[in-house]
């Protein structure tokens, strides 16, 4: 099958909350195997777009296809089955506070497989090792973790079932530059190891240059521009320049 096959297709999608229009007839597609970054100013609807694509928010109008399934008219059972093929890393981790890291990482396995507790713990340990946590970190509880460790633990849970699609909501926000850079590397390592299609919402310029294959800029309730990072950075469209041609963006570009 061709590499550029679309795993997510958003067609003429509109999302409203009351009178507030978040997205108006938005179109975009995510290709298999790519790392797609969604950027935009605060309040441009990046995270809600991610929630729509991860099937956590249903659009007000328009269609959404995820992994060759028409999501808009799906039964509950089909939705649940499809969700197992997705992994989501939430902005603040959303780890279950009453469970240790090891238990958190094993939740999807415990729910969706019949494996023994021992084997589940071992697989959870492997996943934790893949995101850079040691087995002993598994006994810690979420409120004992630093911000960076919390994100890693949440990522271990997100990849528990080897998802085909991985959604990352602001993976590097709240991390110091060193941790953020190592998280970027981690994303690339996981990408090459497990080969999921990755959708990242971020406004971290360094991370955009480092990991994104393709970037979509949101603004005014729809897609303002899309392309590779260098294409967007050299664009002459004023709206795009406004976002990518400021001192902070330049600094990130020069450091690449």
């Amino acid at each position, binding site marked *: *099958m061709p590499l550029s096959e679309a795993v997510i297709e958003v067609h003429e999608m509109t999302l409203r909350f009351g009178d507030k229009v978040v997205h108006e007839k938005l179109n975009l597609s995510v290709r298999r195997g790519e790392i797609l970054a969604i950027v935009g100013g605060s309040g441009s609807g990046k995270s809600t777009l991610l929630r729509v694509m991860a099937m956590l928010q249903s659009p007000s109008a328009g269609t959404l296809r995820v992994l*060759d399934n028409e999501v808009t008219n799906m039964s509950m059972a089909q939705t649940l*089955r499809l969700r197992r093929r997705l992994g989501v890393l939430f902005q603040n981790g959303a780890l*279950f*506070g*009453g469970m240790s890291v*090891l238990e958190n990482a094993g939740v999807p*396995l415990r729910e*969706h*497989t*019949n*494996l*023994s507790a*021992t*084997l589940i*713990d*071992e*697989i959870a*340990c*492997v*996943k934790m*090792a*893949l995101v850079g946590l040691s*087995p*002993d970190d*598994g*006994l810690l*509880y*979420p*409120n004992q973790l630093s911000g960076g460790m919390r994100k890693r633990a949440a990522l271990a849970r997100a990849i528990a*079932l*080897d998802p*085909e699609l991985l959604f990352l909501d602001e993976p590097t926000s709240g991390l110091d530059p060193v941790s953020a850079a190592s998280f970027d590397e981690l994303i690339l390592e996981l990408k090459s*190891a*497990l080969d999921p299609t990755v959708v990242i919402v971020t406004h971290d310029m360094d991370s955009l240059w480092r990991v994104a294959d393709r970037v979509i800029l949101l603004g005014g309730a729809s897609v303002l521009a899309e392309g590779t990072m260098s294409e967007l950075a050299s664009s002459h469209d004023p709206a795009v320049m406004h976002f990518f041609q400021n001192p902070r963006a330049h600094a990130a570009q020069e450091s690449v």
Partner: protein
Amino acid sequence: MRALNEDKQQMATLQMDGTLLRCGGDWTVSQLSVLELSLKQTRLPEGRVQIDLSEVRRIDTGGAWVLQRLLLKLEQRQQAVEVRGLSAEAKGLLELVRNTAITPASVPRLYHSGVVEDLGRSSLDRARTSIRLLAFIGEMASVWLGQLIRPSRIRWRETFHELGEAGYKALGIVGLLSFLLGVVIAYQGGMQLRQYAASLFVADLVGLSMVRELAPLITAIIIAGRSGSAYTAQIGTMQVTEEVDALRSMGIAPMELLVLPKLLALIIALPLLTVYADIMGVLGGMVMASAQLDVGFPAYIDRLSVAVSVESYLVGIGKAPVFAAIIATLGCYQGFQVAGSAESVGRRTTLSVVQSIMAVIVVDAAFSVALNYFGI
């Protein structure tokens, strides 16, 4: 490979053919359970082993781990292993899992303590909790005394808000439940009294039991469930979201803003609610008496004024502020004990309600004994 349909999945298999282990099917987490069981039960062959994976259709990290686990086991038994028929994907995943250097022994085990240790720990824990509760009451009292000296520091706005929440909004449920309680007592007691042609004394029965004991108790129990739980959940959630720390950082004492208005409001509201419950309970008894026992309203009210002394009435209402203090203190205290997670909010809320209701009933019993001793 991944586009294969979900329903066409096959269980992962492992067939033994002398020293050749033939693997097949889908080595993915959802298809591994049978293989895991059979691997536990089968005896692995001795000597040099070959593992053939050419019939494995799909593999994921879980499958790769099961394979790695098998390899580790053979390695431990110092057997030579030859793995063949690995697809590029399987090779990559096996490499990945191997590089994590995880072994079955590296899974951390939770330390399980014995009975004696548990007993010791929980005793210590309880002792510490009691001390912390005492410290909390002490802190509350000292802030409150400070406010009594300078009444301008009392937060009237918050207090009135709490008064509305805990008092006014509880009128419906307190009224309904005490009315029904009056009905039940009149009905059950009246049936007995009628046998002795003493139906009129139903007024004594309902009046005394409601006014002296049941109205204060049922009101306190309702408020413990309604407001005590809300106090714990509110303060607990604020604790989790660091709002309590935010207040502290702005130089606002959480005790002053969060606890004392609730305490003050409840101490005012609960006696008033008790009076209301008295009226509704007696009313319930009155309705029942006239409907079932042919005791008219005037006769009932006449009898009531003889049966229920002012003392009994005041004893009932006098208990209410004490109950209020218990409920508000325990509710707020448990709220501040919340640490970390949403689960902790739930646990503390349960604790707060259970402890408040228990304390209210124990204190009520103590009141009965003490008042009896003093002959009131």
